[in-house]
């Protein structure tokens, strides 16, 4: 192969490597940061690897941990495609989880009905919560970024109240003296799973996530509604001209996105925790955006991005033990990853990857007045 052929080959196929190289660059910068602040970056990264993918036990933990990030990443990506920026995955996840808990604690059904019912309840809860932001955007033009963030805070406070309130007793567990969790859900609604030797139970949630990944991909590629949502997102004027109602698309896209995040919440309740507590899960809103950006909104990519995210978070504990570093290092590395993904010119420049063509951007943000 001549030199020019190699260059041509590189120019043709290297853009697909940008996310990988961005992650690599972020890890290098992270190592520099750890080194400069007096830490042992080698021990840290070996710990990170062993704690996330290095052993079967760690791998199972990573998969369990990744599941909500994959599904919430899908929720963000779906909204992205429709031109919306959904930072509210966290609040939607809580809404879904609470609805699932209600179904799980008040009903007694055979698993074949109970499990789907729990998932549907989660989806509806998340969809309803996200629709608030969707309707406000469609009807008044209020920007979904601020509203979804506000809905996150509100969802957290409401969950806190629903769990802790004793008079009237709402969703709290009367037997729990600390007042910080709901009762456990019925055995019949728990997701079945397998335990491979000395590992935690790998529940069916990951299978659900994979199904949803391909479902979302199919939805955008093959269905009319998916096409309409995409069109309303990329070019609202053309969509309006073609007879697509843009407000309707916005509401539907937010509801679908929220439904996905709600399923993630239901999955956590039914597969991992069997309850909702006051410290259920935190920071998913921003993490889900990172996962979606890392995968550039591609559903199958989100599967891997979510696994990476879950791996970083799972490995952080061993890294903390091995290198004596605070787990916040992972947050910094995560931010660097998104930074290098978002500003991919830096990565392209570093590794001599041809620059993006004009009009190839992931998305372009609009002012607050809506667009």
């Amino acid at each position, binding site marked *: 192969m001549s030199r020019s052929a190699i260059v041509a080959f590189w120019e043709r196929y290297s853009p697909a490597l940008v996310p990988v190289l961005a992650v690599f660059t972020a890890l290098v910068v992270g190592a520099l940061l750890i080194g400069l602040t007096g830490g042992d970056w080698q021990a840290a990264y070996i710990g990170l690897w062993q704690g996330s993918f290095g052993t079967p036990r760690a791998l199972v933990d990573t998969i369990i941990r990744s599941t909500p990030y994959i599904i919430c990443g899908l929720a963000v990506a779906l909204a992205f495609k429709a031109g919306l920026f959904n930072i509210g995955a966290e609040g939607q996840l809580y809404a879904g989880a609470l609805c699932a808990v209600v179904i799980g604690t008040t009903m007694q059904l055979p698993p074949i009905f109970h499990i789907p019912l729990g998932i549907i309840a989660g989806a509806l809860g998340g969809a309803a919560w996200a629709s608030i932001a969707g309707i406000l955007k469609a009807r008044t033009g209020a920007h979904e970024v601020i509203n979804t963030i506000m809905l996150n805070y509100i969802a957290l406070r409401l969950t806190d109240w629903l769990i802790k309130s004793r008079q009237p007793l709402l969703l709290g567990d009367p037997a729990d003296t600390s007042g910080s969790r709901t009762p456990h859900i019925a055995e019949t609604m728990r997701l079945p799973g397998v335990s491979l030797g000395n590992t935690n139970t790998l529940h069916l949630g990951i299978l659900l996530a994979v199904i949803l990944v391909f479902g979302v991909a199919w939805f955008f590629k093959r269905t009319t509604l998916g096409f309409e949502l995409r069109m309303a997102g990329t070019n609202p004027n053309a969509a309006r001209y073609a007879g697509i109602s843009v407000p309707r698309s916005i509401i539907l896209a937010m509801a679908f996105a929220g439904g996905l995040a709600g399923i993630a919440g239901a999955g956590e309740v039914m597969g991992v925790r069997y309850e909702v507590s006051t410290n259920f899960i935190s920071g998913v809103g921003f993490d889900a955006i990172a996962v979606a950006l890392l995968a550039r909104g591609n559903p199958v990519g989100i599967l891997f991005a979510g696994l990476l995210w879950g791996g970083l978070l799972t490995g952080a504990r061993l890294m903390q033990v091995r290198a004596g570093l605070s787990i916040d290092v992972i947050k910094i590395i995560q931010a660097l990853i998104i930074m290098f993904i978002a500003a991919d010119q*830096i990565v392209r420049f570093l590794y001599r990857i041809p620059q993006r063509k004009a009009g190839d951007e992931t998305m372009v943000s609009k002012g*607050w007045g809506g667009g």
Partner: protein
Amino acid sequence: MTERRRGVTRRQVIAGFFALLGLLLIVNYVAEIDLADPVTTRLLFGVGGFVLPTPTALTLTLIGGFWFVAGVVSFVPRIASIGTAMLWAGALLIIPALLIWAAAGKQINVVSLASVSLRLSTPIALGALAGIYAERAGIINIGIEGMMLTGAAFGFAVFAFTDNIWLGVVMAVVSGSLMALLHGTLSITFKTDQIVSGTVINILAIGVTGYLRRQFFVDGGGGRVTLPQFSLPLLSDIPVLGPILFVGKPIFFAMILLVIFTHILLFTTRYGLRLRAVGENPKAAATVGINVTRTRYLNIIISGAMAGLAGAWFSLETVGRFDDGMTAGKGFIALAAMIFGKWMPFGAFGGAALFGFSEALGSNFQILQVQAFGLPVPVQFLQLLPYLVTMVVLAGLIGRAVGPAAAGKPYQG
């Protein structure tokens, strides 16, 4: 997006809401007017100051009546202007109505409530100013929250290591500016999507500040002094207004001065005109010789400095400690205040005061143990009040507020 639902305008929704609320108040309180021993609310103006006793039921019935009339009048097309004026007056009446309802049979110190509201609005107003500088120059700054958090953490770190609180404030401003410089580099030079870039700032800030706290001052942090309180001579002796406006801590005063300064800068100076030109139409600005890139960089850095100062308010002026995520969404609320104020400094200050008031009200309600439907109002409801007010304000106002035209669009030089 201005497609309306079949003929129902926002104005009609608001008017209907007022009419309904007014009716509810009248129905609820009209029976209680004639009681032999009516419940009164005592409005206190300053400790040991003037006391205004108001009969709760009568006042609320009157306010309800006004709301009802205002709502109904607004539905009559021919006297629309009167209706609008009455709606605004009705909106202002929400504040006394809330106070009189909440403190029924008790007393509430109006002066201290106003003073606390303004203190709590400090970081929101500064954040809103940060947003104004950035967006007037054409850059959406959703990273204000992260810049605040960085300012709070690094300002406190410098204070903890040098024992000089003023150096801490300086560091807060500098670190906020540095985060803004990163935002600027990403969004101006690399033309990254500005909301993505701002999100990067927010995540990075959570990581960096958490790392800083746990790695370096995990135990040596707590229980430090905060910035000293000043009272301006003479001015602070004015009854009612004195304690509200002229007694306070430095960042609060700085906020008020910066609001005034920003207004003068934006609307009376050459610099302000150029700044606004860059935000509205960068191509035209470039044609007449303004350096768009440099203007944007300069103003995003000023924006970060404001946000950093707002961060110092948390750790150095109020709490004397740094906690993870202590800004608690104030940066996003600040953006809402900016939109509320239509990108004008005084308007943004008004929005900030509204959010500060809703927060102060929450803590006052807790002290008064306000009851609704026979049960105490849960603490969590009071805590989520500012977030809810943000959403209501955004939904109610955004259609009429139009931001700088070029905000969000990278400039292709």
